[in-house]
């Protein structure tokens, strides 16, 4: 694991509308680290993730994410910030009218890829990484929930992100499939991508222990 810091937060407070939900977060995440965020619904995990990807403005504190200073980031720089991040949600949010391959291709086109040969090469590579080698031509409805979530992980990987932000990515999956997705994400972390993983699934976090941030009573506590 390298020592390169990819997320650094100093006294960050996270706001929903006008009220702060979490105060004074200090955090440093390095390349390839896997970090759990645990806490009840409404404890501020999702709001912190949204702040990190520029969906909510940073109103208080200093934050650097993938080289972007969130305090000064301009609206038109947000797409470039997002390209350094991969985001995975609980609902897979795939385009239902097109194949796995076309889902990935759409995101790549939208993020500036032009060369079709390079696009194909990258798609083949991320499908392989996520164990979907033979699924490129499948439509989302032909896939199981676990496979669909693999596709959204593959989608998060197409721009070779420095960080993956995962918001309850196993929330819709059965325990066995959740473990498979976990193993996949841990492998991705090993290859150098930092992962922030919000969950309230304690079984998962007991089974695959890693550094953990606990969100409670408006504060973040570091465990383990």
């Amino acid at each position: 694991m390298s020592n390169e810091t990819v997320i650094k937060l100093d006294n960050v407070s996270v706001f929903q509308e006008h009220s702060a939900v979490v105060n004074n977060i200090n955090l440093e995440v390095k390349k390839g680290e896997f970090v759990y965020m645990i806490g009840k619904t409404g404890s501020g995990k999702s709001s912190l993730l949204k702040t990190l990807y520029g969906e909510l403005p940073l109103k208080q504190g200093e934050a650097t994410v993938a080289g972007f200073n969130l305090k000064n980031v301009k609206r038109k720089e947000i797409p470039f910030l997002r390209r350094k991040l991969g985001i995975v949600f609980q609902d897979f949010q795939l385009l239902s009218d097109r194949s796995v391959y076309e889902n990935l291709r759409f995101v790549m086109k939208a993020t500036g890829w032009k060369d079709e040969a390079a696009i194909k090469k990258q798609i083949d590579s991320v499908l392989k990484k996520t164990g979907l080698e033979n699924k490129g031509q499948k439509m989302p409805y032909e896939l199981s929930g676990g496979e669909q979530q693999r596709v959204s992980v593959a989608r998060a990987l197409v721009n070779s992100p420095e960080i993956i932000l995962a918001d309850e990515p196993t929330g819709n999956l059965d325990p066995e499939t959740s473990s498979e997705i976990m193993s996949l994400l841990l492998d991705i972390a090993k290859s150098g991508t930092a992962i922030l993983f919000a969950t309230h699934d304690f079984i998962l976090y007991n089974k695959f222990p890693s550094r953990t941030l606990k969100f409670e009573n408006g504060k973040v506590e570091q465990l383990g």
Partner: protein
Amino acid sequence: MLNCGKFQNMSAAATNVKDLKVSKLAENIIGSEIIKLAGEVNEKIKQGEKIYNLTIGDFNPKQFPIPAELKQYIVDEYFADQTNYPAADGMLELRNAVSNLLKQRGGLDYKNDEILIAGGARPVIYAIFRTLVDANDTVIFAVPSWNNNHYTYLNGAKPVVIQATPENNFMPRAEDIKPFIKEATLLALCSPQNPTGTIFSKEALEEICDMVIAENLRRGPEQKPLYVMYDQIYWALVLGENKHYNPVSLRPEMRNYTVFVDGISKSLAATGVRVGWSMGPKRIIDKMKAVLTHVGAWAPRAEQMATAKYLSDLNLYDTYLVTQKKKISDRLEGFYKGFMALKSEGFGVHAITPQAAIYLTIQFNLNGKKTAEGNVLENTADVTRYILDEAKIAVVPFYAFGADKDSTWYRLSVGTCSLEDVSAAIESLRAALKKLS
């Protein structure tokens, strides 16, 4: 563990989920065309792009909130335990309030037993089709229009589709309809019209009414008459000097043949509150009530009581609408002027003067133009994509409303945009148009 194994075996033996057989009706049902485009737009927004998303026929509550009083009343009604079944035809309080609203503001006289409340306009439309139209009956509607094709399909009826033209503000005319009325059961009209934001003139609607009256005289009492479904869900949002007309006020003989679609979804920007209603001849309203009873598509009881209370003070309603219409009008006028300015600068765009609702009809005449990368825009799909990719503007092509695939016209909705977005979007469009050769 045993159970687990058993289920695994069962699923191995069963058909693949995607191959499960369903009814022929469900097999062939078409989802909304707009949803495909919306998926792409949302994906781009997720990637962090600033997109002017003008596709949605809805209101952004941050820009267009429902009346504060209505919001409070809804909460109050839940605390007053208005949480059990509503009356099947709607709460009497609301039917009285609607009757009064129609009398005071709509120029229409319908008693509380000639009004049916439902969960928005869609169940009303469904009930009208179910009540009036048999399988293989003919339904006439013009395109572009909203969802008539789907309701016709759900009834197993035969559609007669009229292509409305820009010369007539995309409103159908009596002479367009006339060749088909002899075999028709239902004529579906909408004014102010979704998706065009245009309205019937008095004369045009009178001509259609006279034609329907004459046809029904010809049929006589033994035959099912030709009915008109008159969707006036946007009637409170008629802008400037324009005036809303309805068949029954213009021609009282139309009363027996007209069933209205109406509600608060658009007038009070309350699309998610789900309070709509229909008014028409008592016999038809009673049958629609019977149909809807089995669907259960009622408006929630608390929302009905709150709406009744809100509508009991029409000063509140009037004041709210003045502000609301000003906000809508500023945006529509802003876009209209912007498009006409671009047109006068020589770009291949056009727009139709907005009259009502939250929509502007616009045109991109860009087929054959070449992009900076040297790609030629060959069809409407290419143009739509270019406008989305380069101008960052998302609008809905008229083919999504049943018009020809090659139609160069689009619906622009202002319900979700801020006033600042208007000029910014026009600038973004100008920059994109300049890159074409």
